């Protein structure tokens, strides 16, 4: 049967001139990165209680009964706990309450007070899940979350430097920083809650994006040895083209699987999967358009001398702050 297995349908040799579009792509990336950074402060990340401190309480009414969100809100407002959010989920049988725990009050006492206030207002409900994070702990979690992201980027840089060359390291890190910033931007855009799980998602994006970059770089290194006289720009194009079918298959698999997680994983995994999916798409794009072209900016050592071919192509925008 012709065309089966379907992998044969992929053109066996693509000849896209990726580097030719690196300049406009670079500008696009810089613009999107700046927009993402701005978005992180205005309107700003929607911090979950992991990083902001406060409480989330989930309650379920007995079978056949419903929870009146209005009554719960009223009861909560009477407790004088500052800003309170009440929201029905899964129809009216369940509800989620978010509130702040005053710094000078005991967590246990506040939780007990809230539970009593709510049961007084709407009758007996089961408190199926409660999370309370004190301001001290949330501050520490936030710091360690940021540290983790920083440490990941630094370690990846060191790893690529060690396994390849410094120029490759810069390319990889530029790609990583780009992915992390854009993922943050999308988290803001989709109004996803920034929580501990989100940090895990971004770390995974970092791992995946590196994975992708390494595959391209590996081929690049091999081709640089193989075609000693081919201009650097063409070697880069060749390497990206040669790895393109793998990039597409793996990327599509990962995105489809994450889509399944987002649809079937329930509320807890939704934001997490969406962020991962966005990050993986961005990571795939950046291995082609950020990681490899950046190497052109510096050039690479081939047989002892820096490749002169690097000179005429200037898209320095990407490296300017």
């Amino acid at each position, binding site marked *: 049967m012709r065309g*089966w*297995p*379907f*992998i*044969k349908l992929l053109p066996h*040799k693509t000849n896209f001139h990726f580097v030719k579009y690196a300049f406009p792509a670079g500008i696009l990336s810089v613009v999107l990165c700046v927009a993402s950074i701005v978005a992180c402060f205005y309107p700003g990340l929607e911090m979950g209680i992991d990083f902001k401190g406060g409480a989330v309480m*989930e309650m*379920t009414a007995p079978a056949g009964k419903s929870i009146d969100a209005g009554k719960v809100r009223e009861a909560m407002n009477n407790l004088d706990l500052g800003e309170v959010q009440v929201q029905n989920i899964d129809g009216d049988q369940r509800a989620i309450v978010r509130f702040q725990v005053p710094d000078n009050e005991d*967590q*246990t006492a506040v939780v*007990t007070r809230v539970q009593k206030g709510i049961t007084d207002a709407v009758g007996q409900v*089961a*408190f*199926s*899940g*409660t999370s*309370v*994070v*004190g301001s*001290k*702990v949330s501050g520490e979690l936030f710091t*360690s979350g940021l540290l*983790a992201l920083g*440490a*990941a980027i630094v*370690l*990846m840089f060191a*790893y690529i430097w060690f396994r390849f060359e410094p120029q490759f390291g810069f390319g990889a890190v530029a790609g990583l920083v780009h992915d992390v910033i854009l993922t943050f931007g999308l988290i803001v855009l989709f109004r996803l809650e920034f929580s*501990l*799980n989100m*940090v*895990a998602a971004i*770390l*995974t994006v*970092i*791992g*995946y994006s*590196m*994975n992708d970059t390494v595959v391209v770089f*590996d081929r690049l290194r091999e081709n640089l040895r193989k075609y000693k006289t081919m201009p650097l720009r063409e070697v880069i194009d060749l390497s990206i083209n040669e*790895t393109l*079918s*793998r990039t597409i*298959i*793996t990327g*599509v*698999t*990962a995105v*489809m*699987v*994450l889509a*399944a*997680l987002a649809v*079937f*994983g*329930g509320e*807890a*995994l939704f934001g*997490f*999967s969406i962020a991962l999916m966005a990050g993986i798409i961005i990571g795939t794009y950046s291995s082609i358009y950020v990681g490899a072209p950046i190497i052109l900016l510096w050039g690479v050592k081939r047989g002892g001398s820096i490749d002169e071919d690097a000179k005429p192509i200037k898209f320095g925008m990407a490296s300017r702050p």
Partner: protein
Amino acid sequence: MIQLSRWKVTLVVLSLLVGLLLAYPNVLTPAQREALPGWLPKNGLNLGLDLQGGSYLLLEVDVPAMRAKRVTNLVEDVRTTLAEQKIPIGSLQREAGGVVVTIGEGAQYDAALTALRTLAQTGAPQGQSDRAVTRLSDNRMRFAFTDAALAAMGATAVDQSIEVVRRRIDSTGTKEISITRQGADRIVVQAPGESDPSALERVIGQTAQLTFQMVDTSSNGLQDAMAGRVPPDSELLMGEDGVTPYLVKKRVLVSGENLTRAGVGSDQNGRPAIDFRFDGQGARRFGEATAQNIGKPFAIILDGKIISAPTIQGAITGGTGQITGNFTIQSASELVNLLNGGALPAPLKVEERRVVGAELGADAIKAGQVSTAVGAGIIVLFMILSYGFLFGGISVIGLMLNGILIVAAMSLFQATLTLPGIAGLVLTFAVAVDANVLIYERMRDEARAGRSVIASMDAGFNKAMGTIIDANLTTLVAALIMFAFGAGPVRGFAWTLTIGVFTSMFSSVMVAQVLLGYWLKVAKPKKLPIAE
């Protein structure tokens, strides 16, 4: 490399058998697991609190509060000692770790020094006192805890707190509660399954500091104190009802530390009460105090609230006594448990709590199962559609071995599986087939370059291997960082990723090598089915 070698076949078969053996308990019910012969592994997956339901409490030992309390006792000791020696006190100035005493009459300075030196030595082994006296100018001297003692207080307080919490939890009979130290002054208590953490919190949240102190009966004392003029050696406390005020002396006659045993008894009216017995030191002090104060009331104080304030009828020298108050059978036995478990050296403050109801956990498991099944299904379908039944099928078999090995490794190491961990697992599957994709694409490249089937398959494995290792190491680095910085669910995610990296590299490369080697031997193909 592609040649079928005996050790590779053996390794794949062995790992499959070991994997099955270790993963097997997961399909059994707990009862069936118990019935397995002793030499077989019994552990199933260790589900995190978000899947199983349970409570997580992060408690902070309030060390400053404990130090402050110890200093208060020290100040009162100084006051009483000097009063007993009839040495007039000019002033007592409290400091962070002790007190600066100004002696009223210069002539008495040496006498005061001797008295405080004796006080520093009481109850301490020779030359090892935790308190020290220093001379200062102008009739002043400092009586304070040594720096070493202050530093040790924090460390011992956390150790003791863990000890006390463990004793208290054990006495409730609840099993499987883990108590671990975190950082310098924190304790993590994790209780799986317990959907109502309030009982747990009642048990560990109470300091259970029991003290016996005299009631200040000076005339108008209480009225003055209510008006804001509290005498320096007294404090204003509330009764258990939270309304009735009492003025009591700050000095502690006897404290809960001197209790040897408490039990539930009943008073003359048949209401629940608490019987207790003091140790030798406690009995002597209590005996002396009661003998000196017949006819006066004393207060029994639990965590700053007065349980009762009976009047001393006569000297109590036997070392036993009874606390009566507003007890129910339940509250009395809870208090008895607390007293027998010992008082917490310092209050514990809950800094973080996560409670997941068992029902919510079951929902999460269901969501995890469905999304894993759908995700795996998509990968299987996609691989077979892309690479056909042979090559695609081989990666699917590798994937199955991978799944078995992950479950086996996680059961063996008892790594916690969390909901994000399940997501990590599904993603690991996607990245695992990436290794196959890299190998297959490489083979296609080589076949296109005109090599023979064997040569291109060989080159495919050889050349892709470096890339696969590099690519997987980066995931490993990311996972290690999650370990170092992450908490709870994130660590679970990191565990799954780490285990997945190893098992997926093994199964996607090894299984493909063995099966493709076998295919080469049997089918003797002229053409690579995945190449044009």
